[in-house]
């Protein structure tokens, strides 16, 4: 479904991506892990066409993202939903306006239909009667949920999550993780998540890819990445995940990978 | 203010803006708003008219009565065409002068009214003009002259301010006294002759007075002119007078020093006056005859004048054909218009301009384009008739089949321009309407507001149709424009922008010459 082939990207002297190859299959939940500043966000922005690579190409459903005209790019983007790190809700619009934004812009639906759909999406992320609030009145976790509701409003085929649990307390992080699992399964979407939170990665990943020094250094199921790695950098990074996974195996309440 | 919608706030703001714009426009234009230089105009030639340009004021007794329409060079003279406002008339013996508002102010043409009962004809020439005095030249000359005088008086007072000079003066006075005695003797000897002369002169003055009475007004005018001239001179040149004073005292001193010379000249004068006396005596009879002749001719003149007076009186009362023609305003105007029409006919399309235009715009909210086809008939520069056909794009909003014939809109309106404002009225887009054009920036910019469809277009739009357009003419025949239509009706409200042409014969010629 999504192919990244030999991607290179540099900002001045900072060579962020140095030949990234990645294949994301339809319907799977891919989690890209890596330390801060390793270019995870840059990679995800290439997938949705916010950045264009210096070399290499990104293909989505057979279309090369870099070759698309503006209108084609917009059509492609309608297949995506994206949840930003800080939710990136529009300050000037109400919660309802945020969630219904794409519906209003890209469909001919009547306002009442849009309102209905907004309500449905908000309920899906566990929120009710918040349509009239402004984003400034929401807590961080609530913003993320509204962001998710906005991302799923247009029934996307692919949802991108940019650090979904960063900045949240562990309880709220858990709630968001559950929500991601729930919605992606309910909607049968492909999801790409970038995170450095191994707890989160462990919970939601079908496959995990690790980005290190501008390259994918490890890819596979969570078990493969956590237990069968020789690369010391990878081993160190996934250590906490390994511990969680072992504990869960003991307690028998492993939910993530089935 | 807190509960106001943004639309309302913006509305208040924009309306206030336009109100101020109109106030400023009218304030600037106020002096020109009624400067509809009417039908009357005449021509004045000046030797030079530095500072007078097109649109300069023309004033009489300080009151603005018109403006300069054109300034051209003809035979090395400035030919100035003056357009008069309204009903003003200028006597044909008036004098045109160039005046300035203060030393540095704007120049204008001042007409000093004459006293002739007849007026300068429309398109005629006003014969009398006085070129403006060049202030710089004047000041330079004056100061040079003053310098000279000063030098002379200085040297004079140095040379003659002595005791000797004073003595001289004394002897002059005694000489003068002797002289007057002599004169007395002369006069006494010729008493009879003198009496005769005086009688003659008396008669002559009587005749002269008769003549003068007839021309009293003229004289009064010239005298008052003289008077004002001398007054202004008195005001302007106290310095000069002072210097003259000094000069006089210098001369006095000089005179006292040349006593003997003076004495000689005095005796010469004595001789001369004696001779004069002789001449008078010898030619007494001749003088008499001459005086008599003068008298008869003046009498004849008097008769002629009287009959002229009778005729003009008749004309004034409206007797006779000419009298009627001149007196009856209607007849006069009718004649004038007929003549004008005839002139136009003979000139064929010279005055009447027929322009053809088309424009197309894109309407943002309707999301479709609308085009117009126009014919403009312009019988006069400040007046035109507009015939226009356009498409009613509002009909295309519905789902029914499009019917082009049904959806055509027709306009036929008349427009008249006053200065920078054009008022329009008539049929606008198939309904009665009125409109206002505001012209600016050398007619490159035009703001239009039209109101029509007063009872609304349909049930969705019950308010009158308000259309506001701003046109920009980079060329005379080409324009770009933006605006809003149906501003008062939310349902059909739309904004538009487009391009158009409106060209008459001349423009086409220009266009062809330019591109082919």
């Amino acid at each position, binding site marked *: 479904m999504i192919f990244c082939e030999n991607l290179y990207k540099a900002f001045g002297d900072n060579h962020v991506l140095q030949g990234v190859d990645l294949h994301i299959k339809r319907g799977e939940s891919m989690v890209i892990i890596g330390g801060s500043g390793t270019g995870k966000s840059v990679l995800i*922005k290439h997938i*949705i*066409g*916010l950045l264009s690579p210096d070399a290499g190409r990104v293909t989505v459903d057979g279309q090369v993202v870099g070759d698309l005209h*503006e209108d084609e790019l*917009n*059509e492609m*983007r*309608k297949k*995506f*939903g*994206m949840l*930003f*790190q*800080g939710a*990136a*809700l*529009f*300050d000037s619009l109400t919660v309802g306006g945020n969630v219904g*934004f*794409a519906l209003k*812009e*890209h469909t001919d639906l009547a306002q009442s239909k849009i309102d209905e759909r907004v309500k449905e999406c908000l309920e899906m992320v566990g929120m009710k009667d918040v349509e009239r609030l402004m984003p400034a009145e929401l807590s961080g976790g609530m913003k993320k949920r509204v962001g998710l509701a*906005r991302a799923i409003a247009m029934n996307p085929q692919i949802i*991108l999550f940019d650090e979904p649990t960063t900045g949240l307390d562990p309880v709220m992080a858990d709630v968001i993780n559950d929500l991601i699992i729930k919605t992606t399964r309910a909607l049968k979407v492909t999801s790409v998540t970038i995170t450095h939170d191994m707890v989160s990665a462990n919970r939601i990943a079908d496959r995990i890819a690790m980005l290190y020094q501008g390259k994918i250094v490890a890819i596979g199921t969570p078990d493969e990445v956590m237990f069968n790695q020789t690369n010391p950098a990878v081993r160190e990074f996934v250590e906490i995940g390994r511990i969680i996974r072992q504990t869960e195996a003991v307690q028998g309440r492993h939910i993530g990978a089935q | 203010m807190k509960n106001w919608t*943004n*639309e309302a*706030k*913006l509305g*208040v*703001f*924009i309306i*206030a*803006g336009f109100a*101020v*714009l109109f*106030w*400023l*426009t009218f*304030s*600037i*234009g*106020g*002096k020109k708003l009624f400067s509809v230089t009417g039908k009357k105009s005449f021509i004045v030639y000046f030797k030079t008219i530095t500072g007078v*340009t*097109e*649109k300069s004021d023309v004033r009489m007794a300080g009151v603005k009565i018109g403006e300069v329409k054109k300034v051209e060079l003809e035979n090395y003279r400035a030919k100035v065409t003056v357009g008069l406002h309204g009903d003003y008339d200028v006597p044909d013996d008036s004098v045109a002068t160039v005046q300035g508002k203060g030393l540095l102010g*704007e120049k204008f043409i001042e007409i000093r009214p004459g006293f002739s009962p007849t007026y300068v004809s429309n398109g005629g020439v006003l014969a009398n003009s006085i070129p403006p005095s060049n202030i710089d030249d004047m000041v330079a000359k004056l100061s040079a002259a003053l310098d000279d005088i000063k030098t002379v008086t200085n040297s004079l007072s140095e040379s003659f301010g002595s005791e000797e000079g004073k003595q001289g003066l004394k002897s002059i006075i005694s000489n003068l006294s002797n002289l007057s005695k002599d004169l007395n003797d002369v006069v006494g000897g010729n008493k009879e002759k003198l009496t005769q002369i005086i009688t003659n002169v008396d008669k002559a003055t009587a005749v002269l007075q008769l003549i003068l009475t007839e021309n009293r007004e003229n004289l009064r005018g010239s005298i008052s002119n003289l008077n004002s001239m001398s007054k202004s001179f008195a005001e302007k040149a106290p310095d000069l007078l002072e210097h003259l004073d000094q000069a006089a005292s210098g001369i006095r001193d000089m005179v006292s020093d040349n006593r003997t010379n003076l004495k000689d000249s005095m005796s010469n004068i004595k001789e001369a006056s004696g001779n004069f006396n002789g001449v008078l005596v010898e030619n007494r009879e001749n003088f008499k005859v001459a005086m008599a002749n003068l008298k008869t001719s003046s009498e004849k003149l008097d008769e002629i004048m009287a009959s002229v007076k009778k005729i003009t009186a008749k004309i004034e009362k409206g007797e006779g054909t000419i009298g009627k023609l001149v007196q009856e305003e209607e007849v006069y105007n009718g004649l004038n218009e007929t003549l004008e029409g005839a002139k136009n006919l003979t000139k064929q399309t010279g005055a009447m301009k027929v322009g053809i235009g088309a424009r197309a715009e*894109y309407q*943002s*909210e309707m*999301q479709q384009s609308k085009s117009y086809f126009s014919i403009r008939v312009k019988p006069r520069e400040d007046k035109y008739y507009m015939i226009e056909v356009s498409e009613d794009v509002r009909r295309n909003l519905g789902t029914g089949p499009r019917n082009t014939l049904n959806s055509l809109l027709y306009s036929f309106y008349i427009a008249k321009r006053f200065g*920078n404002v054009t008022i329009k009225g008539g049929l606008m887009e198939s309904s009665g309407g009125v409109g206002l054009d505001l012209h*600016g*920036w*050398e007619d490159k*910019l035009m703001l239009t507001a039209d109101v029509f469809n007063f009872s609304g277009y349909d049930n969705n739009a019950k308010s009158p149709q308000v259309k506001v357009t701003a046109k920009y003419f980079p060329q005379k025949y080409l324009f770009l424009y933006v605006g809003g239509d149906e501003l008062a009706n939310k349902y059909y409200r739309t*904004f538009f922008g487009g391009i158009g042409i409106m060209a008459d014969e001349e423009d086409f010629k220009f266009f062809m010459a330019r591109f082919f």
Partner: protein
Amino acid sequence: MLKKIAVGTLEFVGRYTIDMVKAIGLMGEFVGDTMKWLSRKPLRMGAAVDQMVEVGANSFPVVFFTAMFTGMVLALQSHTGFKRFGAESMVGTVVGLSMTRELGPVLTALVVTGRAGSAMTAQLGTMRVTEQIDALYTLAANPIKYLVVPRVIAGTLMLPVLTVMADFVGILGGFVVAVMLLGANPVLYMEKTFEFMEYNDMFSGLLKSMVFGFIISVVGCYQGFYTEGGAEGVGTATTKSVVMGFMLIFLANYILTALLFSNGGGGAKF
């Protein structure tokens, strides 16, 4: 050592030039993009109305204050000068012409730059650093169209309206001072104000203010749109936006006046 310094200097100059050319290119591209979206349907009139209120109506109090006191001080100053050669009656003319031709448009533009231009930068800058602009892209909505075009429309249309009001208020301020304080004849003052004024004086000012409005909104949006570096970056961008706006306004003012509206002496008759 010397060689090092020389090379370093050259490198600095080179890099600076490259950066500047890049910035100009980026700005050109930005303006081009804006013009492209400006001509595309449908224009978001709702957003434009909001911005018009922000740029126009809400800026009015500041513009009012500025123009009023400028007109007043102009009357005072020119009176002082003119009194020395007995031309007090020309105060109205000077105030009127200065306001309509120059001070009205320029002062309004400066005030609006400080008030609305910087606000545009702050808003767009915040949206950039909180990824709201990226979010717009991912929702298949072009931020130039959604954010920049309404602001540019508002700036370009509202500045002339504000300027007309500034002209009016300035003339009024001068009138108040001249009549109440300096004892001028009110009728004569107004007459003198408009006696030498041509339509061109006012319209040239209004045309200038349109260009200023375009500059203010484009610069404000540009600086905000390319903000980098979090909250601190927003602050820097706002400062840059005001400085750049001021400089471009003065530059454009001179160029426009020199090219379009100065005819040596006399002045074009309307």
